[in-house]
C-alpha cells in the first residue's frame, strides 16, 4: 500500500517514442506532476504472450496501467510488488492478493493467430469475491493493438468508476517549430489521447489556430493564415480534403460545431467588429447572433444544442456571456476576476471551463452554471485553451513551461496535473475529440 502511494506521488517520467511515418515526429513526454492519494488500487498483471520465441509487439498491460495511472483515479501496483503473475484464471491465488489489500486484479493474454492477427483476452476480477467482474476476448490487428489496450482501460474505468473511460479517444493540437532561418513551421496534428500516433493533418509557414472537432470525430475546423488573413477551414480527417468556408474581410475565426454537426458558430468581423455568427454548413447561410460594438468572440456550443457561450468585453474587460443558440439577449455568467475568456462546456453542460486572468497570471477556471461557484484548477502562470475530455473527468489545456508552450491536463477537481511536452517545439491549443462509437 505504501509503495503504491509513493509510486503515485513520485514524479514519473514516461518517454513515449513515436513510430509514426511522418517526417518530423518527435518524442513526447508525459510528466505526472501531482497525483491523488485516494486513488483506487489495482493490479494489472503483465499479459501472457503466445509466441515464446519472439517479443510481443506491444506491452498491452503497461498501456492499460499507464492510462489508468494518468486518470489519477487509479493507483496501479508496481510489477515488482506483485505476489504472483498469473495469466489465466486457474493460476490466481486470491489469498495472496487479499493479504496485500488489493481489491481489483486484471489478467490477460495476447495471442497471435495463424493469419497474423491478434486476440487480446482480459479479465477484471474482484479479489475478495474471487470472481470475474468483466472479461472480453477482443480481436485486433498489429496497428490496432494500442487502441485495443485503450479500449480495455475504458472498460475497466467504466466498471469500477461508473463512467465511460476516455482513453480510446484522440486529441488535436497545433505545433510550432522554429526553423534555423528564423521562420516557423506550424502543424495541425491529431494523436491518441496519450500522445501516441501523431498524424499531421496540415503544415503551414503561416499561423494555424483554434482546431475544433466535429461531433462525429470525422472532421476538424480550424483557422489558417495561409492567405495572409484569418480564414476558417473544415478538413476531413480521413481523406485530407478541405474546404475554406469563411474568407470575409476582417477576422474569420473561432469555429465551434453544433452538437448535431450541421452548423458552425464562428467569429466574423465583416460587418465592422467581431460578432458571433452561426453558419448552416450545407447552405452556407449565416445567422448573426450578437450585435454589439464590443468584441464578441470564442463561441462554444452547449452539448444540448440550446446555448452559445462566448467572450465579450461589452462590460469593459473580457467576460463570459451566454445567449440562446437561436439568438436573443446575452446574459453575463462570470464575475470572478477582471478577465474571463474562451469558454468550453463540460459534456453534461453543468460546468464551463474558462481562462481566468488577474494581473499577469492566467489560469484555468471552472464555473458551476447552476450555483455560480467558480474554482481555479491550475497553478501555473500562462494557462489557456481548456478542453474537456468527452467523459468530463479531465481538462487538457496549454501552459507555458520552461521549454515554451506545452500541453497539460488536470482532473476537473484540480487534484491531478500532467504535462505533455514536444521536444524542440511548442504544442498548444489542444482539443479533446469525441467518443468514437463502434
Amino acid at each position, binding site marked *: 500500500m505504501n509503495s503504491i502511494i509513493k509510486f503515485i506521488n513520485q514524479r514519473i517520467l514516461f518517454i513515449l517514442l513515436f513510430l509514426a511515418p511522418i517526417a518530423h515526429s518527435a518524442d513526447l513526454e508525459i510528466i505526472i506532476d501531482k497525483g491523488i492519494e485516494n486513488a483506487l488500487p489495482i493490479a494489472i498483471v503483465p499479459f501472457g504472450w503466445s509466441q515464446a520465441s519472439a517479443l510481443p509487439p506491444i506491452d498491452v498491460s503497461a498501456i492499460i496501467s499507464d492510462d489508468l495511472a494518468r486518470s489519477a483515479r487509479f493507483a496501479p501496483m508496481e510489477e515488482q510488488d506483485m505476489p504472483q503473475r498469473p495469466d489465466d484464471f486457474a493460476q490466481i491465488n486470491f489469498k495472496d492478493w487479499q493479504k496485500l489489500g488489493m481489491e481489483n486484479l486484471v489478467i490477460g493474454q495476447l495471442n497471435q493467430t495463424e493469419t497474423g492477427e491478434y486476440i487480446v483476452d482480459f479479465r477484471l476480477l474482484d479479489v475478495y469475491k474471487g470472481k470475474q467482474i468483466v472479461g472480453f476476448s477482443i480481436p485486433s490487428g498489429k496497428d490496432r493493438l494500442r487502441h485495443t489496450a485503450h479500449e480495455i482501460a475504458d472498460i475497466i474505468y467504466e466498471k469500477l468508476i461508473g463512467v465511460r473511460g476516455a482513453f480510446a479517444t484522440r486529441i488535436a493540437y497545433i505545433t510550432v517549430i522554429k526553423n534555423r532561418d528564423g521562420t516557423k513551421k506550424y502543424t495541425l496534428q491529431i494523436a491518441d489521447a496519450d500522445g501516441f500516433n501523431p498524424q499531421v493533418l496540415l503544415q503551414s509557414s503561416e499561423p494555424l*489556430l483554434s482546431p475544433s472537432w466535429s461531433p462525429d470525430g470525422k472532421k476538424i475546423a480550424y483557422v489558417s493564415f495561409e492567405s495572409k488573413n484569418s480564414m476558417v477551414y473544415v478538413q476531413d480527417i480521413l481523406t485530407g480534403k478541405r474546404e475554406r468556408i469563411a474568407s470575409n474581410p476582417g477576422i474569420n475565426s473561432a469555429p465551434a460545431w453544433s452538437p448535431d454537426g450541421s452548423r458552425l458558430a464562428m467569429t466574423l468581423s465583416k460587418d465592422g467588429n467581431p460578432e458571433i455568427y452561426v453558419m448552416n454548413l450545407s447552405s452556407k447561410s449565416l445567422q448573426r447572433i450578437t450585435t454589439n460594438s464590443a468584441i464578441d*468572440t470564442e463561441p462554444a456550443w452547449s452539448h444540448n444544442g440550446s446555448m452559445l457561450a462566448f467572450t465579450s468585453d461589452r462590460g469593459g474587460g473580457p467576460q463570459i456571456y451566454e445567449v440562446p443558440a437561436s439568438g436573443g439577449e446575452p446574459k453575463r455568467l462570470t464575475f470572478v476576476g477582471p478577465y474571463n475568456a474562451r469558454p468550453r462546456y463540460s459534456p453534461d453542460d453543468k460546468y464551463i471551463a474558462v481562462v481566468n486572468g488577474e494581473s499577469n497570471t492566467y489560469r484555468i477556471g471552472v464555473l458551476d452554471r447552476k450555483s455560480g461557484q467558480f474554482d481555479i484548477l491550475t497553478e501555473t502562470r500562462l494557462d489557456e*485553451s481548456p478542453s474537456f475530455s468527452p467523459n468530463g473527468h479531465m481538462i487538457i489545456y496549454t501552459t507555458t513551461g520552461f521549454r515554451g508552450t506545452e500541453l497539460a491536463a488536470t482532473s476537473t477537481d484540480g487534484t491531478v496535473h500532467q504535462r505533455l511536452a514536444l521536444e524542440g517545439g511548442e504544442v498548444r491549443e489542444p482539443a479533446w475529440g469525441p467518443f468514437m462509437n463502434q
Partner: protein
Amino acid sequence: MNVRSTLIIIFAAILFGCTSTEEKKEVAVEEGAPAGEKTQAYGAGEDTGTGINPLDDPNSPLSVRIIYFEYDSSEIRPQYRKTVEAHAAYLASNPNVIVTLEGHADERGSREYNLALGERRSLSVKNQMALLGASAGQIRTVSYGEERPAAAGSDESAWSQNRRVEILY
C-alpha cells in the same frame, strides 16, 4: 495594479524621456513602459524639397512604423499622435499609395480574444488616419493576434513590444 502601472509609466517617462535611444535599450523595462518606445524619436523633418522619398527618410516622422499599446487597450497614446498624423497626411497627398496596418497582441489570455484585440488596434489606427484625411480605401487592416510576436519572452519587456500595430507600405 492600474495605479501602479500608471505610476511606473509616469516615472519611466520622467526618467527616460530625455535620454538617447541607445541608453533606453539597456534599461530593464518595467510594466507599462514599452521598450519599443525607443523607436519614437524623430527629427524636425527639414527634408522637404530634397527629392528623397519621405518614406525613406530616417528623419521623417514617417520613419516611425510601429505604434505600441497598453494592455488590453486599443487607444492611441498621445506620443503616437504625430506619427499617425504624418502617415495620414502622406496617404492623403499620395492617394495611390496603399498601406497595411497589422494589429498584434501580447501572449497573455486567449488567442481568439487577442485576434480580436489586434484587429481593434489596427482599426483604431485606421479610423484615426481616416479622420485625418487618408482615404479608408487606402488602408488595409489585418490582425495576427498573438501569433506573430516581435519579441520572444514572457515578461513585460517582451509583451510591451508585442502589443502593436505595424504600418506596412
